């Protein structure tokens, strides 16, 4: 069984009022921003179920936007984020929806700008979050570790090439999960790493044939 940390219980230091609806929203925003890789020109937030129903009262909308702008969970500017200069640089909008196939606290981030990307995630309780989809590929990212996310064509040897490159740099892989549409079709992989990868390794991985998307997603600091 995975050991729980004291700091799951006596933190985070965060702006209120809700671990799942406020801190969780910021953390989902921060992770999506790390996946997208930059501040978007335009973003649409689709909030589902409890996020849609009680989100405004909990500042979920403010939290999601804060995260996408790179503002951390304990930043008191979140309360007035809609008045913030940084927020006015981005064209953002919110949609409030119901879909009972989705988790009660669920959100889609639809990024537009130099590239389009859709990231989906759930706030699973006590401020913990999970990114579940990138561009409709199932992934499993919690922000607990530095992670490497790949979308690639399923074929012999891709995983060993990637893990080989990581190994030569002396970085340990803590956990890994892969999904694929079907044999030989598109696939996705998330690797949790014990430390951050530097730029040159990521560039090396990008040069492997049949890998379409490589993202190094830094772990969440709080």
């Amino acid at each position, binding site marked *: 069984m995975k050991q729980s940390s*004291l700091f799951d219980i*006596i933190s985070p230091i965060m702006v*209120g*009022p809700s671990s799942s609806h406020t801190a969780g929203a910021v953390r989902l925003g921060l992770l999506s921003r790390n996946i997208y890789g930059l501040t978007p020109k335009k973003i649409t937030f689709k909030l589902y179920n*409890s996020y849609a129903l*009680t989100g*405004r009262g909990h500042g979920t909308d403010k939290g999601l936007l804060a995260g996408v702008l790179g503002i951390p969970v304990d930043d008191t500017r979140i309360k007035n984020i809609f008045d913030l200069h940084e927020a006015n640089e981005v064209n953002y909008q919110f949609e409030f929806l119901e879909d009972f196939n989705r988790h009660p606290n669920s959100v889609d981030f639809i990024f537009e700008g130099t590239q389009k990307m859709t990231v989906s995630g759930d706030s699973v309780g*006590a401020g913990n979050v999970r990114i579940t989809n990138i561009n409709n590929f199932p992934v499993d990212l919690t922000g607990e570790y530095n992670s490497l996310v790949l979308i690639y064509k399923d074929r012999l040897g891709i995983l060993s090439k990637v893990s080989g490159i990581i190994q030569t740099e002396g970085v340990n892989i803590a956990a890994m999960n892969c999904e694929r549409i079907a044999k030989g079709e598109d696939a996705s992989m998330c690797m949790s790493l014990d430390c951050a990868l530097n730029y040159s390794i990521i560039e090396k991985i990008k040069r492997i044939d049949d890998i379409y998307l490589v993202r190094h997603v830094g772990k969440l600091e709080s």
Partner: protein
Amino acid sequence: MKKNISTFNELLSTCGQQNKRTYELFQEKEAFLLDIEIEKVRSKVKKSLDAMKEAIHIGLSSNEKSISKQCGDDCEKLQKRYKANEPLFGKLFKKITAYALATIEENLRMGKIVACPTAGSCAIVPSVLVAISEELNISEDEQINALITAGAIGSIVQNKVALAGAIAGCQAECGVAAAMSAGALVQILGGSEKQMVHAVALALKNILGLTCDPVAGLVEIPCVKRNVFLAIHSVTAAELALADIESKIPTDEVVDALCQTGQLMSPMLKESSQAGLAKTKTALKIEQRVLNNI
């Protein structure tokens, strides 16, 4: 590899074998888990402690309302009363109740608080810990020991049940916070590990079945006042335990009962606002007003 302590029974036997306190075992375990020095663990805990004190400080002098405009000025009201009337239970009661309101109201106005274990239950541990430490001149080191003890209690309970109203009702949020606070208080007052573990059982036993039925789905009604009530509840548990009054049901079995009660609790009473207080006639009116205003 440090041994994982996943039950209160294991905690007591490990404390006995190694002649250590709960906070010592857990700061060692945390240092190992995060691969950092024990001092670094303690300085992280101090950061949480300092943030708790800051929230109390700011909350005491604010009456700003929440986004929904339903709550936010109770701390001011209570302090006004205390200026005119000494509270029946004395100065400590006065501080705990005021600090609890100060913290939970900071939370609902999107101020900075420490989730402990959650944001909706963020006022219970800090109000008791800070009030007692001020009144009894408790050193910062001892406050940190107590907060680590509180964290240890929460983390052992979390091994069996997620600390979320949506999973097990408010018993797993404010209830567990009260158990953490009771144990931390026993630690501060020089009680034994055994007394600490019984304080946890006593606090939990007396909130079993507590549902999560917030009006309009917000962390406001009944969460604000519930934090104050359960802060005082935790003091009762600690006082009884310090008198060597034991829970006839062992703490781990009480946690099992909490877990089972959470599973049997209707989903309508677990943070979904579909029943209970949330669906009373007045709650429905409030909900309508809130949805129209924000």
